[in-house]
């Protein structure tokens, strides 16, 4: 079949791994080394208002004459920073709580399960919006709101994994030789449940990027003059009739990174052979 030869393994690996990896890598690079570039994302230049893309400024200028390219990179930093913090917060908090709960079992576990159920009873994004609304706008509050919502999925996953592993031979053996609980958790359980957690985290990054952009789109995230892809899209939609580049570029950037994170998650899941979690819809 000549058609499917197109999708031979080499080709597919390029598509499934290297493409998303390069997108994520350049995103992370731009975000981390932002200070090295001499960018002026906030510099207002009234003479350049809504200037279309040109040779000198590839992506043109926005409604205040600020360079869109610079703001895009500054927005990359915002999304990178927020999603990294949110996922790190979620994985560490959720992982530790989930593992401990499963390990300790008994009434602690029962209470924990109920708590998780209640948190999962909120549609995630809705709770994040309400929390961000209550805490007030600002990047710190966005991280807090998304973190509060995000840890539950990881906790539930970690708990489920540990319950399945708890009676594995090496854990029972460690018990038998009198290893302290923290040692069992950190040395014998956590390494084994890392794979599904990593898969979940890579999808979590995609979710966090969209959520941050969504909150900023609603005006609950970064505040002017700071740049976020979400707020750039929101501002861009107001001028999409006259300057479509303002809404197209941040949207493309956002979609590319989210797509890359999702593809990477898919690849990791297949590679690490983790079964698709039906809980993903919840978190």
């Amino acid at each position: 079949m000549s058609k499917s030869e197109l999708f031979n393994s080499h080709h597919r690996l390029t598509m499934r791994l290297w493409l998303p990896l390069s997108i994520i890598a350049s995103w992370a690079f731009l975000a981390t080394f932002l200070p090295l570039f001499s960018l002026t994302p906030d510099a207002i230049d009234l003479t350049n208002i809504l200037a279309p893309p040109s040779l000198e400024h590839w992506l043109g200028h926005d409604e205040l004459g600020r360079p869109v390219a610079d703001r895009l990179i500054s927005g990359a930093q915002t999304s990178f920073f927020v999603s990294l913090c949110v996922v790190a917060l979620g994985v560490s908090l959720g992982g530790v709580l989930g593992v401990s709960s499963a390990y300790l079992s008994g009434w602690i576990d029962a209470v924990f399960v109920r708590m998780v159920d209640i948190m999962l009873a909120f549609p995630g994004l809705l709770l994040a919006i309400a929390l961000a609304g209550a805490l007030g706008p600002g990047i710190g509050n966005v991280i807090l709101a998304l973190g509060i919502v995000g840890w539950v999925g990881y906790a539930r996953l970690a708990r489920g994994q540990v319950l399945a592993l708890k009676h594995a031979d090496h854990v029972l053996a460690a018990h038998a030789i009198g290893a302290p609980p923290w040692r069992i958790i950190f040395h014998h359980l956590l390494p084994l449940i890392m794979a599904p957690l990593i898969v979940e985290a890579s999808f979590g990054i995609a979710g966090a990027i969209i959520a941050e952009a969504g909150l900023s789109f609603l005006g609950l995230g970064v505040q002017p003059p700071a740049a976020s892809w979400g707020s750039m899209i929101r501002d861009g939609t107001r001028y999409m009739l006259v300057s479509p580049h303002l809404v197209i570029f941040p949207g493309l950037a956002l979609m590319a990174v989210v797509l890359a994170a999702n593809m990477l998650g898919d690849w990791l899941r297949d590679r690490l052979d983790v079964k698709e979690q039906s809980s993903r819809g919840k978190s």
Partner: protein
Amino acid sequence: MTHFLVTRILSAMLAIFGVICLVFLLIHLIPGDPVEVMLGESAQPTDKESLRHALGLDLPIHQQWWIYFKGLLHLDLGTSLFSGRAIGDLLIERIPVTLYLSLVSLVVAIGLALPLGLVAAVRQHTPLDYGAMGFALFGMSIPNFWMGPLLILVGALWLGWFPVSGQEGWNSVVLPALTLGTAMAAILARMIRSSVLEVLGEDFMRTARAKGLSSTRAVLQHALPNALLPILTLLGLQLGGLLGGAVITETVFAWPGLGLLMIEAIQQRDYPVVQAAVLCISVTYIVVNLLTDLLYAWLDPRIQFTTGDG
């Protein structure tokens, strides 16, 4: 069966109770003095005191909680600080509008996801499969608030087929429902694919094929109904995403539902309305999930009614 029913309903009620407690605490999450935040800084002390009293924020917290809870039992959600209207009335106006959008989106999502997922599963590892799954991946990755404006541009301005926004005429629901539906269709299509693949591998399917049933008929007659079962649960869970996503989509399309109410209330610092909207959406979500679970139990003959929720 009764045991399952009772435990499931009890756990749903517990979840509702928990949601009420958390929503109650929302107003106390406001940094600093919530009354000051609601009125704006440098508010008159007398204004602050009267609002504090009106909201009962001058009482000890357990008493506040009890008053809030008692009010809910009487379906009294308080009054809006902004418009002075009863919040219950506001919700009753907005709920059907959001529900309508959600249901149409659900129809869009299923209508898109079913053929995509089926084709992908039946033609596994062919360009068709990759195409469908690639499409699904795109659908998952396009944010609502980007797709919405693009759809407005194309569907309302260039083609002129649909109203730009708001709820006017029967066709105004199309664009927001497409926006919401595609994101959900993407996830659904992936689930349908893997679910159908799983069923295709099972014994009864091999038997059916061995009996000479054409593979299309085998899939439609035997595989699909079985594959749809796990998807039912997912559908319930997805509705949560739908209701959450509706907040953004309603903002983009000025769709006068609960989500828009909530965003406006946040902008108006009308926190009692925010609380009520969150409560309302979450409770709907719990109830829908309860119903899908019960439906699942009723549909699936294999289920054992001794366990609680999985």
